[in-house]
C-alpha cells in the first residue's frame, strides 16, 4: 500500500469528525519496537489541559470507592466508556491563604498557576501549559494551541503573564484555516523543498529584532517588559522558521480533513457540544500532525453561561438560584449542565483513545489535566475542587483510578504533570499551595 492511497482512503472517511478507523498500521513509519518513528525519534510526549465550569454536585459526582474500578455516580455516568483511561481526583484543596475567595476565579487560577490571585482581574505567575510548553513546545510549528467551545474569544484559562492571555481559537473554520492553510507543511508529503522565502524571512527578522532593542531603550520599566516579551516572541518566530526549513518526520496519523462548516454564536448546550467536538477533532489532528505538543481545550468559561433549551436559567444563574432536591441530592438542572460537561470530557478522552498512533493511540503518549473553577458553585466553594487526568504519558501513569487527596494541595497533580513532562522544578505553587509531593499512586 502506498502512502498516497492510504491517505486518499482516510481523507474520504474522516470529513471533520474523529472516528476510530481500523487500518493496518504502516511499519514504515515506526522503528521495530513501535515506540519511535522511523527516523529514530521517539513518539513525542504531549501535554494538554481541559476545563469545565462550575464544579460538581458532590453527592452524585464523587465515587464511594477509591482506587481502581471505582463506581460511577450519576453525574459522571457518561465517563463509563473512558473510565479505564482517566483518573479522578477528589478531596484535594486549593488554598487562598490571605487572598480573598474570588468567585469563579481563585479555584482555576490556583490549579493552573499554583498561586492564589489577589483580585478578580489578577492573573499571577503563568499557567502550567505555558511552563510545560517551554520544555516540550519548541520542536513544533505552534508552541501551544488553545481552543474554546464557547465561541467567545475572551474565554481562556491560559496566560503567559497577568497582561498576556493565550487567546483561544473560537471558530472551527478559522481554526482549520490557521492549522491547515497555506503555511501547513504536510509531514507525509513525499517531497520536501525548503521555501526560499522562509529563509529570507528569517534573515529579515534581525532588522526587526534590532528595532525592538532600540525602541526598548526609550521606555519605562513596565513598557520595557512588554517589549521584552515581544522580543521573545520574535526570537520564538526565528525558531519556528528554522522548523519550516527542516523536513518534518512523517506522521502516519496525520490526515488533513475537509474544511469544517462554521457555527453560529450561542451557548445552547447542544451547540456548545457540537462546537466542542469540532474543535476537539481539529485540535487532535493538529497534534497528530505534530503541529503542536501542548494543547488547551476550554469547554466552558468560569462563569459558565451555557443554556439548556427551554429552561430559563443559564448554568451559572442556576447554580445560585436552583434549590437542592434532597431526594436527588443535587440541583437537578445544575446537574444536567455538569452532565453535559462530562459528556464532552468523555468525548475528548475517547477521541484521543481512538486516534491511532504508532502501535497505540494519541492518548498513550499524552497527559491531559482537567480542572474547573469551583467545587460546589452554589456557595462558591473551592474546597475539594475536583480534577481529572487522562492518558498514560507514554506508559508512565496508571489510569482508571479514583484518588482521594486527603485534603492535600490540588497543585500536586499539576506538579506531577510537570515532572512527567520533564520540567525540572523542585516544587510548585505558592504558600499553602506549594508542594513537592507528586501523586505517587498514579505513577508506574
Amino acid at each position: 500500500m502506498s502512502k498516497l492511497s492510504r491517505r486518499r482512503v482516510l481523507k474520504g472517511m474522516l470529513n471533520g469528525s474523529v472516528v476510530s478507523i481500523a487500518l493496518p498500521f504502516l511499519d514504515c513509519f515506526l522503528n521495530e519496537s513501535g515506540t519511535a518513528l522511523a527516523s529514530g525519534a521517539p513518539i513525542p510526549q504531549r501535554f494538554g489541559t481541559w476545563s469545565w465550569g462550575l464544579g460538581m454536585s458532590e453527592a452524585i459526582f464523587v465515587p464511594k470507592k477509591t482506587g481502581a474500578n471505582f463506581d460511577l455516580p450519576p453525574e459522571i455516568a457518561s465517563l463509563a466508556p473512558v473510565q479505564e483511561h482517566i483518573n479522578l481526583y477528589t478531596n484535594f484543596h486549593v488554598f487562598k491563604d490571605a487572598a480573598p475567595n474570588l468567585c469563579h476565579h481563585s479555584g482555576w487560577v490556583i490549579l493552573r498557576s499554583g498561586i492564589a490571585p489577589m483580585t478578580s482581574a489578577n492573573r499571577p505567575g503563568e499557567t502550567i501549559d505555558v511552563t510545560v510548553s517551554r520544555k516540550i513546545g519548541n520542536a513544533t510549528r505552534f508552541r501551544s494551541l488553545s481552543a474554546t467551545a464557547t465561541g467567545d474569544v475572551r474565554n481562556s484559562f491560559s496566560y503567559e503573564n497577568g497582561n498576556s492571555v493565550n487567546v483561544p481559537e473560537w471558530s472551527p473554520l478559522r481554526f482549520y484555516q490557521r492549522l491547515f492553510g497555506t503555511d501547513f507543511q504536510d509531514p507525509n508529503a513525499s517531497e520536501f523543498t525548503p521555501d526560499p522565502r522562509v529563509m529570507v524571512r528569517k534573515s529579515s527578522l534581525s532588522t526587526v529584532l534590532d528595532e525592538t532593542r532600540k525602541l526598548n531603550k526609550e521606555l519605562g520599566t513596565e513598557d520595557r517588559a512588554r517589549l521584552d516579551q515581544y522580543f521573545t516572541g520574535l526570537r520564538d518566530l526565528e525558531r519556528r522558521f528554522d522548523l519550516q526549513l527542516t523536513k518534518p518526520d512523517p506522521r502516519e496519523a496525520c490526515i488533513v480533513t475537509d474544511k469544517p462548516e462554521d457555527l453560529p454564536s450561542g451557548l445552547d448546550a447542544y451547540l456548545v457540544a457540537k462546537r466542542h467536538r469540532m474543535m476537539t477533532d481539529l485540535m487532535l489532528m493538529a497534534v497528530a500532525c505534530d503541529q503542536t505538543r501542548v494543547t488547551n481545550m476550554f469547554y466552558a468559561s468560569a462563569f459558565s453561561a451555557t443554556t439548556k433549551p427551554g429552561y430559563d436559567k443559564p448554568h451559572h444563574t442556576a447554580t445560585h438560584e436552583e434549590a437542592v432536591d434532597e431526594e436527588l441530592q443535587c440541583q437537578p438542572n445544575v446537574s444536567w449542565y455538569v452532565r453535559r460537561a462530562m459528556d464532552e470530557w468523555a468525548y475528548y478522552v475517547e477521541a484521543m483513545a481512538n486516534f491511532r498512533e504508532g502501535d497505540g493511540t494519541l492518548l498513550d503518549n499524552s497527559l491531559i489535566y482537567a480542572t474547573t473553577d469551583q467545587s460546589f458553585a452554589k456557595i462558591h466553594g473551592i474546597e475539594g475542587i475536583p480534577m481529572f487526568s487522562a492518558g498514560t504519558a507514554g506508559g508512565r501513569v496508571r489510569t482508571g483510578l479514583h484518588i482521594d487527596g486527603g485534603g492535600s494541595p490540588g497543585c500536586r497533580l499539576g506538579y506531577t504533570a510537570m515532572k512527567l513532562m520533564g520540567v525540572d522544578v523542585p516544587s510548585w505553587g505558592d504558600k499553602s499551595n506549594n508542594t513537592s509531593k507528586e501523586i505517587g499512586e498514579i505513577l508506574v
Partner: protein
Amino acid sequence: MRGARLLTYFTKTRTRTAAVLALVLAVVGCSSDSGPVEPENSASPLRVRLMTGEQYTNTIAQIFGADISNAVAPPLPPLARTDGLLSSGAAFVGVTSDQVQQIQQAATSVAEKVVDEYHRDYLIPCEPVSSTEADAACAAQFLRETGRLLYRRPLSEDKVSELVSVADNAANETEDFYSGLAIALESMLISPEAVFIVDSAEPDPDNPGEERLDAYSLASRLSYFLWNSGPDNELLLAAENGELHTRQGLERAVERMLQSSRLEDGLRAFFDDMMAFDTFDSLAKDPVVYPAVTGATLADAREQTLRTVIDHVITQNLDYRDLFTTRKTFMSMNLAAIYGTPTTNGWVPYEYPADSSRSGLLTQVSFLAAHSHAVRSSPTLRGKALRELFLCQKVPPPPPDVDFSALEDAGDVPTARERLKVHNTNPACAGCHLITDPMGLALENFDGAGRYRETENGAELDISGELDGTTYDTIGGLTQAMRDHPKLSQCLVNRLYAYGTGGPVSLRYDRDILTNFEQRFVEQGFKVPDLLRDIALSQAFSRVRPDPVAAESVANENDELPSKLALN
C-alpha cells in the same frame, strides 16, 4: 458660575499668583490665542499602546485598500476592559509568542496581496527594471513611502537602506523583485514600531523644563482619537513641517479631521467600545424562547444604535443627553419583527409613534438584549450596565458567601420584581441590588430580546422606580431621569478623554481638567464635536506628564457610591 468654578481650579493649583488669577478671570468665557484656559498642570502620560484589531484593519485599509484589509483577520488579541474601555486595555496588554506568530502570518498575507499582480500596479509607485531581479531604487521608493505610513513617521535613510537590503537580498534569493519587496514589507508590518503606538516626548520650547509629545506622536494620538486609524499623508506633513506645534496649525488639522467622513469611523469605534458592544461578538438568544432573534437580528441591533448615535451627535450635531430620550432611530428588516413595525428593505430613518414606550438608547434592542440572559430579561444586568456604561459608576460584584435560599423559595413568582424583592431581605444583597434593580425594573416592559410586553407570566408589570433621587412610574420617566442625570455628561467626558489620551484617567492628576472639559461641554450645549475639539486642542492632550502614573489605580469617581446608596 463659570468664573467661580475656575476660581476653584486655581486655588487648587496653589502656584498661581493673584495677578494671573485676575487675568484669567478677566478672560473667562473667551478663548485666548492659545485656546481655552486650562488648569496649569494639565498633561497626560506617555503611553505605549498595542494597536487594536480594528485599528489594524483600518490602517491596512487606509494604506492598501479595503479589499486587502477585509481578506486578513486582524491578528491582535482581545483587550481587557480597563476603567470602562477596551481601548484603555491596549496600554497594558502584552503580546504572547503565539500572538507574535499570528502577527507575522497576517503580515505575510497582507504583503503577498500588496505585491500580487492585481494590486502591484496601483500600490507600488514604480516598476522594477526587471521583475526577476532586485531593484534598489524602486524598492526604496515603495518602502520609504509605505514605511512612513506604517510607522507613522518618516523613516531615516539608514532605515530605508536597511529595508532595501532586505528586499534586495530576498529578491536575489527568490529571483523575484516582488517577493523580495513583500519580505521587506512583512518585516515592517511586524515591527514593534508599527504594531505598538509609542508616544515620544521632546522638550517643550514654549515651556522650558517641560515636555510635549513630539509632532508625530501628536499626529498619531489625534488620528487614533478622531479616526481610529493612523495619520494620513496630510497630517504627517503637518507634523513634518512643524504646523502641529502651532496653535493655528493644530486647529487647522483638528478642524479638517472633524470635518472628514472618517470622523464617523472614529466615533463609531468609541461608542462601540463605551457601550461594550464587543458583547455582540458572541451574543445569542435561546431560539426556543426567542425564535425571531437570529445572529443577523443582533448584528442589526448593534448597527441600529451606532447609526442612531452617529446621526444624532455628528450629522445632526444635537445635545448628547437627548440620545437618551430621542424617538428617532433607524429600522431594518431584521429588527422590524422585534419592534413590531412594518419597514422596507435596507436601513431607513424611523421614528417611534407618539404612544410608543420606546425613547432613547435604553429602550433600543441593543441595550435591552445585550444586558439580559439568553432566555430571559435581567433587571439587575440592565441596571448595572446603565450605571457602569453611561454614568461611569461601579457596581461591586456579589459577595462570595451569599445565601440564596430565600431566592429558591421565591422561584415561582410571576415577575422579576417579586423575585428580586427577596434580595432586599438579605442585607448582603440589598446594598447592590438597590443600586441596579430600580432602573432595570423600569425596563421590564421589554423582554430578554427587547420586545415590548405588557405583562410577564400574566402579571401586570410595575415599572415605577427611582434613579438617584428622581422618581418615575413610566419608562419615559426613567429615560428622562437618565437624560438629566448629572453624571451623564461627566461620564462621557471621562471616557472620551481616556480614549483620546490612550489610557485610563487619573483621579489624582486629571480631576481638574475633566471638570474643565465638562464645564465647556455644558456651556456648548452638550455637542460632542465641540468636546472632541476641546480635548484635541487642549494642552493636556499634548503636554507630557513628567511622572508616569502607570501603577496608580485608575480613577473611579463613584467607588463610594454603593455604600452611600445602601445607607439610603
